[in-house]
């Protein structure tokens, strides 16, 4: 056998060099961290995705959070109870490019290198999942904006996670089931995508309906990557449904509505979840005529809530967030802003600067906080219970469409046009 000891030596030398590189890298990020973590500032660490599958949703959320920080700083900072003074807010953000593995490392980076005061998660369950683990492990308070995976809040009491927007998907669709029962639909078709978010909704609705004696005539899952809906639509049509619920991500919803449009298929009732969140994307990609009479969940800014006791009301937010272009504001901008408000409330009532002290600030305001998303209320696992999600229907409005709340009747503090559901939907 040949002997080549020189290889090891050179190999080890290269390894040492590489570790040296690591050291340089960390020195670089230490600089970055010290630049951010100046005395007299509260640092909020977050991630965003400028590319990849979640970029569409992640970027507006990030913009909302940045807007909140700008707002706070323009008023001389936010009040930090344990310090008894106002502090400026600094956001430290990294780009995870929609990759959960990168996100894991970057969340760790925020805690271990940048020593941020609190963490705000990136959009959605997939990119939030790694943060949940790190928050638990490192006992770091995490503000979860929209990551409502069923597994995040079930493992007993966890004081380190707070969901700031949207109830978890298992309770969220209750109004939909009630509306279907009220409309006396008998034959309900449910097509959902196989991911945590949509699957949980589908199962919840199925449960609510079954309790009322309605068994869905079609209940099928498809891969989230599904883009060809033609055969599926034909299958659904064959069941002759009174109502069709398509529960997917924005791309699925758009592909589904486009398929209905392209084949001229008409159902009496169609619901897609993301129309309410991203109306302008649907206008652009599907077109107003085809969207008309579709049902969806009503969320801000469609749902206008101005009766608030922290931050801006919805109308003011829209005006200041996108001056002159109110139509470009979407729900995720609001959600990002709302996460900032939760952070703000936590610090304003924190009992100490420790992570649990900051969490105690949330407990202090739980159920009392009125934001532009409604009542902020979490349980002891951090699950959001408070915010409203009525069902809305798109109705023709000028060249485009307007979303009108059809169920339940709007609460008093919500300034919103109520309407009776147009059922069955008129043919377009």
């Amino acid at each position, binding site marked *: 056998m040949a002997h080549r000891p020189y290889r090891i030596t050179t190999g080890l030398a290269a390894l040492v060099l590489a570790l040296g590189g690591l050291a340089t890298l960390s020195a670089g990020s230490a600089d970055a961290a010290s630049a951010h973590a100046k005395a007299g500032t509260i640092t909020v660490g977050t991630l965003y995705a400028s590319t990849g599958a979640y970029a569409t949703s992640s970027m507006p959320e990030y913009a909302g959070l940045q807007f909140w920080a700008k707002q706070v700083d323009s008023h001389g900072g936010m009040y930090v109870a344990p310090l008894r003074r106002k502090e400026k807010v600094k956001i430290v953000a990294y780009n995870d490019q929609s990759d959960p593995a990168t996100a894991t490392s970057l969340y760790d980076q925020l805690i271990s290198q940048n020593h941020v005061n609190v963490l705000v998660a990136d959009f959605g369950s997939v990119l939030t999942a790694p943060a949940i683990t790190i928050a638990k492990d490192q006992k770091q308070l995490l503000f979860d904006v929209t990551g409502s995976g069923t597994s995040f809040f079930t493992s007993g009491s966890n004081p380190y996670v707070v969901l700031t927007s949207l109830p978890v998907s298992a309770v969220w669709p209750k109004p939909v089931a009630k509306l279907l029962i009220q409309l006396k639909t008998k034959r309900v078709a449910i097509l959902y995508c196989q991911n945590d978010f949509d699957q949980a909704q589908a199962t919840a609705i199925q449960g609510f309906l079954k309790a009322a004696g309605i068994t869905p005539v079609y209940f099928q899952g498809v891969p989230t*990557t*599904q883009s060809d809906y*033609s*055969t599926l639509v034909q299958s659904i049509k064959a069941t002759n449904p009174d109502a069709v619920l398509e529960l997917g991500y924005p791309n699925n919803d758009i*592909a589904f509505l486009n398929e209905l449009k*392209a084949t001229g298929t008409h159902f009496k009732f169609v619901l897609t979840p993301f129309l309410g969140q991203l109306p302008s994307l649907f206008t652009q990609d599907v077109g107003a005529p085809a969207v008309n009479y579709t049902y969806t969940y009503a969320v801000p800014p469609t749902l206008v809530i101005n009766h608030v006791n922290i931050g801006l009301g919805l109308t003011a937010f829209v005006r200041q967030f996108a001056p002159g272009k109110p139509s470009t504001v979407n729900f995720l901008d609001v959600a990002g802003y709302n996460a900032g408000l939760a952070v703000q409330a936590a610090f304003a009532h924190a009992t100490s600067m420790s992570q649990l002290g900051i969490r105690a600030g949330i407990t202090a305001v739980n159920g009392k906080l009125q934001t532009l998303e409604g009542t902020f209320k979490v349980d002891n696992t951090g699950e959001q219970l408070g915010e409203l999600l009525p069902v809305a229907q798109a109705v023709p409005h000028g060249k485009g469409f307007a979303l009108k709340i059809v169920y339940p009747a709007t609460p008093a503090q919500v300034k919103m046009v109520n309407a009776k559901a147009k059922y069955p939907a008129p043919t377009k």
Partner: protein
Amino acid sequence: MQLFEYAIVNGVLFGLFYGFIGIGLNLLFGVMRLVNLAHGDLVVFGGYLGYSLAVDAHINSLWAIPLSIPAALVFGFLVYHATVPRLRRAVDTETASLIVFFGISQVLEALMTMIYGANQVTLPSPGGPVSLFGQDYPASVVISAALSVPALALLYLYLYRTRIGLATRAVMADEDEAVASGVRVRRVAVWAFMIGVAFATTAGTLTAFMLGGINPTTGSGLTITAFTVIIIGSLGNPLGTVVGGLLVGLASSLSLTQAYATEWTAVVPYVLLLVVVLVRPSGLFGATVRRA
């Protein structure tokens, strides 16, 4: 029964499109044993070109098909000369090409994100539903399938009715003998490369129609679909690719009609691929068996 017929027609429409996606990839593999992992990204790049025309220039996005061809040829020419001569000298061309084209696919994805952003974009539908055999199909799907047919026919004419096409087939069948017969392999290879790239970009606009929209990461999935199609139809056999495409299209479409199978649709092509390579490792139309 109506649903079954619908699924068959739909499967054929998609199958033709899959054949179109796969064929450029197969040309590259057949002639040069190159595993082009950037194929799907080239397809998506073509789709974005169509999008630019529709949204920025306000002309029909189908114009992207003729307009992208010269650009694709130039791009193919440049990439060929930058990479292929070195790859051909590598000890293991297949593996080396796989890595190089993975890198190129990363670069393309980055460029697309920089230029067009990360959002999904869709193209305006080319028209209302089209009636075939008494049922309505989306115009975008029918038009895409209809355009795939002449594209495939053009490649057939290139291979079977032109001198360089004959030389291309000679190289695919037996490179040594082709060289010994005076065929200029480099010229054949450059053209095959450029045409392969052009096929990818021209399929792009159709992809935006077929898939409902595109984003910069759509490409990697398309690459895998394309490989599945060409392996089923045999690597290096362009006509087999069309059959492979039809098989994948039909199987996927039919699985969507079965209640228990809808959630397994995405697996269908992979299972098909595994069955084909294990039962007949050379693919359905392969001449040479490639076993270790």
